């Protein structure tokens, strides 16, 4: 099950179905990393090096020279099988569509699964992702990975209380009253 830091990666579908997810799960179950490539729907996984152990230098987080940017990685405290239970591209990573490459591999020391993603240079981001992207695709990818991790580990995506400005929109000044169908506590 153990994989060295030289991860082996596999190319697969952009938005994968359960069959592809099964291939990815099988790959990581064999102790390898799976890469979920955005433009090869239905392909069999293929291997490619993720990075070399001896050379730890990386391109900048948000490369603008056509090279792929730095991998954003989170460790999910669950097995790869659980991380990929529904799809090889778990929600909400799925909404980034073909804009990112995704890899998964077992984390060392039984710490679960290393889930990595990075923007694909020049890729067209789907509507909502393009809207959210702004100038920092790396941050969007990172936020999305954290969301995946939270969904897998905690079972839901934690929401903040409504902020004061949102409250203010509902209640001018201090004279807020609860709706009639909900008793005031």
């Amino acid at each position, binding site marked *: 099950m153990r994989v060295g830091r030289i991860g082996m990666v596999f190319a697969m579908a952009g938005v994968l179905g359960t069959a592809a997810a099964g291939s990815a799960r099988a790959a990581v179950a064999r102790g390898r990393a799976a890469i979920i490539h955005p433009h090869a729907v239905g392909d069999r996984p293929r291997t490619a090096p993720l990075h070399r152990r001896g050379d730890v230098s990386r391109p900048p987080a948000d490369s603008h020279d056509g090279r792929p940017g730095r991998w954003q990685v989170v460790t999910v405290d669950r097995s790869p099988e659980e991380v990929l239970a529904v799809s090889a591209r778990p929600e909400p990573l799925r909404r980034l569509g073909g804009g990112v490459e995704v890899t998964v591999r077992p984390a060392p020391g039984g710490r679960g699964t290393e889930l990595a993603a990075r923007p694909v240079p020049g890729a067209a981001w789907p509507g909502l992702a393009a809207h959210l992207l702004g100038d920092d695709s790396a941050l969007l990818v990172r936020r999305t990975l*954290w969301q995946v991790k939270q969904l897998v*580990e905690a*079972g*839901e995506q*934690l929401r903040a209380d409504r902020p004061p400005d949102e409250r203010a929109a509902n209640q001018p000044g201090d004279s807020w009253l*609860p709706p009639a169908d909900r008793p*005031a506590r």
Partner: protein
Amino acid sequence: MRALCWAPGGELSVRQVPDPELRNDQDMIVQVRLSATCGADLPLLAGGVTGLAAGDVLGREFVGDVVEVGPAVRRHRAGDRVVVCASVACGACWYCRHGLPSCCDNGNTDPAEAEAEWGHPVAGGFGQPRAAGGFAGSHAEYVRVPYADFGAFTVPEAIGDDRAVFASEAAPAGWMGAEGGEVRPGDVVAVWGAGAVGQLAARAAWLLGADRVVVVDRHPARLLMARQHSGAETIDLRHTDVAAELRELSGGRGPDVCVEAAGGLATEHRSLAGRFAGRTRMPEAIREAVYACRKGGNVVVLNSGARFVDAFPVGAAVHKGITVRGARPHGQRHIPMLLDRMARGELRTEHLATHHFPLERAVEGYALFRDRPEECLRAVFTPQEP
């Protein structure tokens, strides 16, 4: 409902705000019985950049009654009297499963933002700046509790509200100081700060078998309280050489464990040049603890307000082989044990609530807490009038 709200400049007011609502399946709503002030709130009252928005509700340590539970809550039901851990943690990530819930990966609504602040996301918290997750505080009639099964604990009947409220954070923080310092039977333990956390760190050191516990502070009334309720010897730092006193009290060795629970901000500057250079003043207590600690001993820093500090005595730490450990309380791990000790009478905390106010007078309570530390150790607020 009514709540104590923050406004720019550090002004406070009790205002009408919307009731909290269930936002996640693991949430519950608690009707607050008692909510305590905390030293960590004081920087928020000092103005400047706090990360709060006008209208944010303050308060982080509280006890109350469950009034509504989300569909995924299993351990609680309406009517339960609970104390709620001041930090928000999921109970399901690697850190929570390894007994480090204050390091939780999923206790924040925007972990990526928290990463920018601390390098990694940490547990969220109630009534704190938005970077702590955006969870409204407990100086209110009602509060929403995320991850309720992991962060809320039913209070045994034998424990009154005045005691239970300190199981929320002050008692876990004090315990963290002693446990993080690896206090062993026979140890000499020194605690800087005779506030609620310092006194409870001293008590925890006793319970873990320390032979001698010494509390250092500048306020005689707090030192008296530490002697009466924590069984500690005390040093008034205004009148003596603290390091020399500690050497004398520890056979010349220095304390085995030093716990910094003095709080305070590292925002003062020694000089104009230091201010321009962005240098900040090392909180004296941490420096003193490192110098006083015996060779090979442990120093635990509980001050969460110290963000960037300069002039840290690295040389003393290296040459004496000292371990310096920072810690926020792992409340979710310690609260059940602390409630047991409270129920058995081993841990009494009522005396820490020196002033009681109805929530409507919370502004007055905070003014007292901030401006008259000699007199007011902790002010507690009662949102529901009896």
